[in-house]
């Protein structure tokens, strides 16, 4: 991982808690770009993050064709912006990461009596290629 000096995932934890939506940019195999918002980028470990796969959409289709993804996350404390270059690695449908993401989704849904509506299909794991403070 090549990251900007002194910027580590652990240092930008508040930005990975989904307070402010994340902007993600992907491109299809024929280089057609797609930019959208997602709710949260989850911290996995010092060199990995996860994105929730709930619905099959353009972002999911693009990363299955072209694994590179750019995410712009915002720190809700200082409002600093960070650009993360990510590479899709795998989709997990069980395990610790999947469970942690699923339980968060279910906790929010059950508090609104919408249990089961927001099914997590998979936890998409991305390697962090670089982090750049914007």
């Amino acid at each position, binding site marked *: 991982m090549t990251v900007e000096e002194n910027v580590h995932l652990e240092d930008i934890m508040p930005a990975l*808690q989904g307070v402010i939506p994340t902007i993600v940019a992907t491109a299809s195999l024929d280089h057609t770009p797609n930019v959208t918002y997602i709710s949260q980028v989850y911290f996995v470990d010092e060199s990995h993050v996860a994105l929730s796969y709930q619905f099959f959409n353009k972002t999911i289709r693009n990363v299955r064709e072209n694994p590179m993804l750019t995410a712009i996350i915002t720190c809700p404390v200082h409002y600093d912006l960070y650009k993360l270059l990510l590479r899709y690695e795998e989709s997990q449908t069980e395990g610790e990461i999947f469970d942690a993401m699923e339980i968060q989704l279910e906790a*929010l849904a*059950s*508090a*609104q009596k*919408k249990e089961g*509506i927001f099914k997590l299909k998979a936890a998409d794991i991305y390697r962090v290629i670089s982090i750049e403070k914007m």
Partner: protein
Amino acid sequence: MEMTALDKLSAKLETSQRKMNIISKVSFELNKLVSLPEKLNTILDILDDQFNLSNSMILVPNPDQQHLTVVACHGYAEDQTGKTVPFGQGIVGLSAARRKHINLTGIRRKQHYMATVSLEGELNFVKPLGLADAESQVAVPLIANAELVALLMAESREFCVFSKEDENFLITLAQPLAVSIQNSILYDSMEEKIRERTAELQRLNETKNKFFSIISHDLRGPVTSFQSLTRLFSHYHKLGQTDKIDSLCDKVDQSADNLNHLLENLLDWSLSQTNGIQCVFEKIPLLAFLQQIASLYKESLAAKEITLTLSVGESIALQADQHTLATAFRNLLSNAIKFTPRGGAIAIDAVRKDNVVVVHLSDTGVGIDKEKLCALFTLQGQRTTCGTEKEKGTGLGLILVKEFTELNHGTLTLDSGPGKGTRFTLTFPT
């Protein structure tokens, strides 16, 4: 660069030191022999003081494992104690149901997002306890011996209050907390069991004392009387006075009746005290049943010239156990005869009301004063009172009436006063 690393290390050391202090303080509180709510409130105070958990609570699962109830809380304007949340609902309920910790922030925005993408638009946020507008919430299940003992929840209106480190630290604290809470609950339940056992032993001791008291007082009398009568028989026999021997026969018969009645009551009562009575419920036609009971006391009634009136419809029937019901009515009637002066009256009537039969037994007897009324159905200080013609009793009769009425799912009340007679009211299911 070196300074930055040193600063980071120093900050980490400071944090570790602070956490050690918290663990030390919490451990100290956990080892104190105080009530569970007091212990938990102190722990929440420490967590606020040392860890800035300004709004927190501890919940325990109900025995049905369907709900959690708040047993301690800290920092809320309104007391949260006693509030409940169903298993599986919201962050607290889901953390308990899944036995996994949950740390969320930006809760309200995420819920708005969910409401929007689910196309339902409206936000219908269910939060039965704590801060209605919490933005950050962490819930940590406290598990000991694979059992969910309690749940620690902290929350805030601010964003990003609980870091990953905070979460991990709370998880570290969760283990000793869980063990301590489980021990306290076990300790409390042991105390409760000891109290129950002590009460049971006291009751058994009273039973034993009463038993010996009855044997020493009530059995000795008739036995002594038999002894005297035997000597008199022998004496008159030697003198050849057969007419006097004949007159003694009535006294022997009466003594034998009294002794038999006493032994029957004593046996029934002993069985009821050791839960040895097995009721067999059957349909009992009340009029025929009461006529049979009354026939047993025909001579006693005649001897005191007491009139007994039965006003019971032929169609009235009870669902009851024949043996215990007969014992109850035998004692009620013999009690009424005992305390009704010569020439008095006893009336028994019964009516059906909805699903119960109400039976009244009234007499024109001496009545019972207020002081005796309070202790009428208990063993405490209870001694037999002689009847209007010095008839003897066991002191067990009315206790048996009450216990056996209740065994038949009935109720017993009475209205009495000195000089105004006594009226017993019994209700039984039909």
